[in-house]
């Protein structure tokens, strides 16, 4: 077939294909619905996924590289490292392994951060705005390899303690029992 002008046809084909692609979107603010889950959360006992949980915003944080990297920064700024170290766990439980005490879904993690948990997990409800909590939730899930590799964060510009989230193997979440209660 002799095309009069092959360059033009190639360009047209390319742009047609482009129209169908999904564009990565960066949100600097999150217009959450009026009833933010913040006030509807009840301080109650352990509820690993039992009663209805705060709803997931339409913007899926853990598919967005910018949100996960913000989550990593906040993980450091809000001193989650103080108890959870670099994800390996210190006084707080490890976040990188496949064991989840209070449920591994984003809503469970959100509830854990907002409500706090026994044995020292403080309640950050009201202290961290919802959008940042969702970002931290997305990052914590990426620590355990639940997030797509191309969205994952890479190494940080400080001491190299473990493999970067990107090169960690993704794990199959398993529920595990809560840590022993102190007498």
């Amino acid at each position: 077939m002799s095309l009069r002008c092959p360059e033009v046809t190639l360009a047209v084909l390319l742009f047609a294909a482009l129209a169908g692609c999904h564009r990565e979107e960066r949100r600097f603010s999150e217009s959450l619905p009026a009833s933010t889950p913040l006030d509807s959360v009840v301080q109650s006992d352990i509820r690993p996924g039992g009663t209805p949980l705060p709803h997931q915003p339409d913007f899926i944080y853990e598919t967005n590289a910018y949100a996960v990297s913000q989550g990593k920064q906040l993980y450091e700024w809000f001193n989650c490292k103080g108890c959870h170290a670099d994800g390996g766990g210190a006084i707080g439980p490890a976040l990188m392994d496949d064991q989840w005490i209070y449920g591994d879904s984003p809503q469970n993690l959100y509830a854990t951060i907002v409500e706090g948990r026994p044995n020292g997990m403080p309640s950050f409800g009201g202290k961290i705005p919802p959008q940042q909590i969702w970002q931290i939730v997305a990052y914590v899930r990426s620590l355990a390899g639940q997030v797509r590799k191309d969205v994952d964060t890479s190494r940080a510009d400080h001491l190299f303690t473990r493999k970067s989230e990107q090169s960690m193997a993704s794990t199959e979440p398993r529920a595990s029992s809560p840590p022993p209660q102190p007498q």
Partner: protein
Amino acid sequence: MHSAINTAGPRAHEIAELMTLFTAVCAVVYLIVIGVLIWALLRKRARARLASEAEREIADRKARHVITWATALTVLILITLGLSDFFVQRSLFTPPKDPLRVLITGHQYWWEIEYDHPDPSQRLRTANELHIPTGKPVELVLTSRDVIHSFWLPSISGKKDLIPGRVNTEVLIADKPGLYTGQCAEFCGLQHAKMRLVLHADSPEDFEKWRQQQLQPGREPATDTERRGRTVFTSTSCVLCHSVQGTDASATVGPDLTHIASRGTIAAGTLPNTPDNLAAWILAPHRMKPGVQMPATPLPPDDLGALTKYLASLQ
């Protein structure tokens, strides 16, 4: 004032003088070269005579002669410009005598300022607005916590980069008291454009008065609304990033707000420091600085009013 041409410090003044020297010399060179070019393009009369080989040879020899002189002149000019720059550079890089040392740490989109002092109780932390006494050299010790920034006060001195993992120094000397603005000069991310800073060049007495006032812990709230504002400050998201001396908020992620009201601008020189700007900034910082690290804090109106009053009281 924010310009490299009309200056308010001896260092910027020296550089401005050097700039005028360079510009003058270059302008003269430019006019000569362009003049000769236009003459070369438009000379008509000799055109016919150059047809024969002999005349071409003479013309070539003359041209070769002119070019050697022109090149020699170029080399001479470059040497003079080079030497003039060398002397200015030497004076700029001579270390100052017992300067006031100020540690400046660059963050993504704001400046952390700490006045160095051997006695820890005299050390002073502030942000985005730098006060210096006039006439006295101030040595800035520059480093960065995240990416590369560049500290630039055009009217006072040249710029110097703040590089993570390295420590740079820059010297500031202001002659005339006044307000001089500066800007981050190395692209540092989404809000590089609004990472500005303000320099207050005060007379030595004003500076000392300002320093003493800054050393006091945060003022105790006088009225009920201010007291309520403080509880809002220490119970919602402010406490996770900011610190106010004298309260139990002591996070160093964000700027120190102990004397926020004494600063003329907020958000690294983006907004003038008025109560409603403060309220709008707390509610939705991304509307003024999209991509800034401070989150939106959806506070109910009365809490927000109390918080703003409390912050406005922190002189």
